[in-house]
């Protein structure tokens, strides 16, 4: 069916990847409901990559990079785009084969197309995170990032998780064989039924480019940054034991929301060009401090492999 065929449909590409990774044991999650710069920021990756518990998840994450806005005029660059994110913890021994299997599923024949694993060390200074891996090339085009996480939120990954990030628009442009992202067929429909990527997103690209670059109120944003930072600290400073429930409730996720918010506000300020080089390092360091604190908090929770009851006993 052409509506589900990655070669003719953007949503078909997503559905095929969902189907493939569901079959390989992943929970198929929905996007995180906040603005983020990349799929990695979703707590299903950032936080769940920490701690000893096994975890397999796949999801689409809308990602925002305010500085990449081009008013809908550049065929390759968008300030809002989609990443397909897979996280497998611990990284399975056949992760490369699983990844190549997903490319086969969306119709890329590795004896017709040149697939290459090219060195790429991944680092996110704001997340206090790094890993080693590759960018995956298909006929010279980078279509995915493949990373073995070593550290996230300043914490050692134990065990290590494997992260796969597909640039969905690029991949779709490749399999649909179009040169302009706005020409992508989104729904696989034909004639009047056809909905293009441009029909959905070209206008919003224009709107956001204008807002990101020229209109966003920097004073408000600076205040948002300070507020988010403060709230994150507040949350984490709270007594682990909830007096109402009489048990430990470490609020790692609400705190992490504020960390994400600070990170995105920083990106917006950066796009507005109001952050100097020296200040830049300072802001990045502040977000990193938050993410470290959130990582520590998560490790103390049940999902992070911690023993929240221990602190309860201690408190009692």
């Amino acid at each position, binding site marked *: 069916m052409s509506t589900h065929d990655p070669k003719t449909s953007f949503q078909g590409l997503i559905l095929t990847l969902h189907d493939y990774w569901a079959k390989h044991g992943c929970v198929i999650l929905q996007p995180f409901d906040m603005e983020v710069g990349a799929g990695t920021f979703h707590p299903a990756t950032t936080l769940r990559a920490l701690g000893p518990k096994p975890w397999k998840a796949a999801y689409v994450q809308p990602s925002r990079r305010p500085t990449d806005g081009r008013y809908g005029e550049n065929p390759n660059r968008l300030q809002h785009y989609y990443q397909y994110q897979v996280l497998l913890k*611990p990284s399975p021994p056949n992760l490369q084969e699983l990844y190549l299997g997903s490319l086969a599923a969306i119709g890329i024949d590795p004896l017709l*197309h*040149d697939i290459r694993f090219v060195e790429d060390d991944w680092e996110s200074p704001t997340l206090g995170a790094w890993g080693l891996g590759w960018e995956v090339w298909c006929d010279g085009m980078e279509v995915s990032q493949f990373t073995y996480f070593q550290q996230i939120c300043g914490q050692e990954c134990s065990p290590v998780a494997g992260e796969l990030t597909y640039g969905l628009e690029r991949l779709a442009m490749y399999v649909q064989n179009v040169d302009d992202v706005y020409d992508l067929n989104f729904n696989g429909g034909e004639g009047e039924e056809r909905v293009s990527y441009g029909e959905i997103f070209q206008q919003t690209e224009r709107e956001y480019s204008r807002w990101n670059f020229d209109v966003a109120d920097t004073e408000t944003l600076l205040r948002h940054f300070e507020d988010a930072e403060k709230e994150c600290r507040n949350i984490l400073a709270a007594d682990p034991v909830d007096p109402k429930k009489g048990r430990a409730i470490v609020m790692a996720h609400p705190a992490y929301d504020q960390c994400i918010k600070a990170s995105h506000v920083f990106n917006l300020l950066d796009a507005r060009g109001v952050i100097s080089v020296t200040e830049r390092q300072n802001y990045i360091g502040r977000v990193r401090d938050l993410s470290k604190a959130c990582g520590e908090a998560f490790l103390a929770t049940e999902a992070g492999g911690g023993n929240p009851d221990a602190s309860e006993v201690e408190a009692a």
Partner: protein
Amino acid sequence: MPDFLLELRSEEIPARMQRKAAGDLKKLVTDALVDAGLTYEGAREYWTPRRLTLDLRGLTARSADIKEERKGPRTDAPEKAIAGFLRGAGLESVDQAETRTDPKKGEFLVAVIEKPGRDAADIIASVMPGIIENFPWPKSMRWGAKSAQAGSLRWVRPLQSIIALLGVENDETEVVPFEVSGIATGKVTYGHRFHAPEEITVRRFDDYVAKLEAANVVLDAERRKDIIRADAANLAFAKGLELVEDEALLEEVANLVEWPVALLGEFGADYLDIPPEVIRLTIKENQKCFVLRKQGETALSNTFLLVSNIDAHDGGTEIASGNAKVVNARLSDAKFFWETDLHTIETEGFQPWIDKLDNVTFHAKLGSQGDRVRRIAALARELAPLVGADPDDAEHAAKIAKADLNSQMIYEFPELQGAMGRKYAEIKGEKPEVAAAAELHYSPLGPTDDVPTEPVSVAVALADKLDTLVGFWAIDEKPTGSKDPYALRRAALGVTRLLLENKLSVSVFSLIRESYIQHLFRRQAWNEIVLIPLCDHGYASITAFFFYRGDEVAPWAKFSEIDYDRRVAVVKAKEEEADTRDSATLTSGLQDYELSYELPSFGSVIPDLLAFFHDRLKVYLRDSGARHDLIDAVITPASDDLLAITRRVEALGSFLDTDDGANLLAGTKRAVNILAAEEKKGTGVAESVDPAMFDTDQERALFTTLESAEHCAAEAVEKQNYEGAMKALAALRAPVDAFLDDVMVNVEDDAVRANRLALMRRIRDATGTVADFSKIAG
């Protein structure tokens, strides 16, 4: 004699690391085997993106038995000593030791330790896990379920399998059993990821190579390169083109594939308007592809060459067109950057880029790149007359020299800094020597790099390096040991080579002072004040303070009043005072100011930085064959004309080879040694020589010769004629000898002795204008 085959197969190893890793593997394994008592006939390493392989031939099958005797204490030695000996030798009781007799030592114990030889397989199995676990990867990682355990294996990327096969020629081979992080050795590997995914069982190196080749893996990187070279040449020739060779790219590309297949692609011909360097770099850095040109021509063609890892079943059409799409997109970006830059240059000139330098921090304590450029420009202007450059040209060249750092092109391709600056300056219509300085002021970058000779470039290059050196010295961030993050050794060697190779006789002291002044007074903001305190405690009494912005000095600043030998404080002024430009408001209540940082006094920066220059000069002169004792003899802590030092070393070297030279050295040394010995004892030496106290002809003759030699030598030194100075001094040999042979220096009469020692000191002082002869060997 068995052969050993080792393969470590992993997920894709970064191309830049493979060659070194394979070499490390060979060295580590062969060293370990030799240490354990084995020998081998030959070893060769191989690598592909997915494996490191070692082919070890003619290994000894077993290490030799070793019998070792260890002498112990006498049999009647204290019990503790005997127990310690037994423990050290690994014996359980005295019965296991032999007793021997020696006429000197009497009866004593000997432990005979026999170490039987071990099979090669045992040795391999015992050394290999350690080698693999501690492999010297530049960056390594953990992976998989095991990574949760402490001390789990780290490798460049996940290690997947290990082949370890040992066996004599024409016979069966055996797997050498060992295990690393749960990976047991075996005899199975895999071929090409896509062409031949099935497992391959191997026995020894010969069939291993053949089976891999059949499975679309060319094991030898040199062969992969040859294949790429040959295929590239054929493809290019058929189209009337030739490859623009690039060895570094070839090495990288050969290590990105196991089965190289060269293909040609085309990009849009309209991109050929972009400068060829930019096209080449875009295609190389981003896409790892080669560019081509028409045979015998210099202009690029719009064809590129890529190397794929598969024999595609459509002959590579899809791959070539896919790559072309990406290359076109990249070139479209590059063209955009180029045209944006051109537009800027043609409409607004360099100014927008220069202005932006103020937003780029150079170093927190040394200000922005803009501050730095203003300092360099002012310094280049000061230096211009010394190097024969026009001051206006030098200053202007320095102002635009770093502007390209803010061009779009350099943001994208930092390695083109300077080269693009020159291009843009030419387009802007700058004088050729000014444009050239944009590129050449970075030179020389290393000990063999060309040194600029055009005066404007020399002035800017000197100013650039001095500013860096003096700045980092002033904030006390000097190189230590192997740490030199700001490449200050390179900068100092650069200054040294610029001075020597352009035959510039200048005082480094004054160069440093000029630069220091710039560091003090070229501050970007009015609300930063430089204070030079009179005393070292607090800022109660200030001799001078300055505002400086852009090219404007605050009206009350008078450089002549500056006392450079005082510590310097940089403080932030209060907001309301920032623009008052009124000295009166600043003189009170200094404790209210926030101290930004302190700088050491100029006087304390100088000796240390000068010594650093001396060290660089010594290395440079030694590398060019000069005798180090001559260099030491010539350099004093105050020597600050590097060219003069070099000329003295040269003159001294050739002069010492002559009879006069040998004479002067011998005579001077004799005199100086006597003086030094007495000085050490604390014997009195007269303030000056008093001819009235002479009572021998030898003294009088020596004094007369000395007076004329001193005079001639001083005149010659003034003209930097060191050979002439030494010739003049050589006249001292005969009277010195006559004096020392016939006249006692250490006579009873204190006054006479002190006068004679003063004469010796005059000799030392006179020769000291050329060299410290006591430091010369022989």
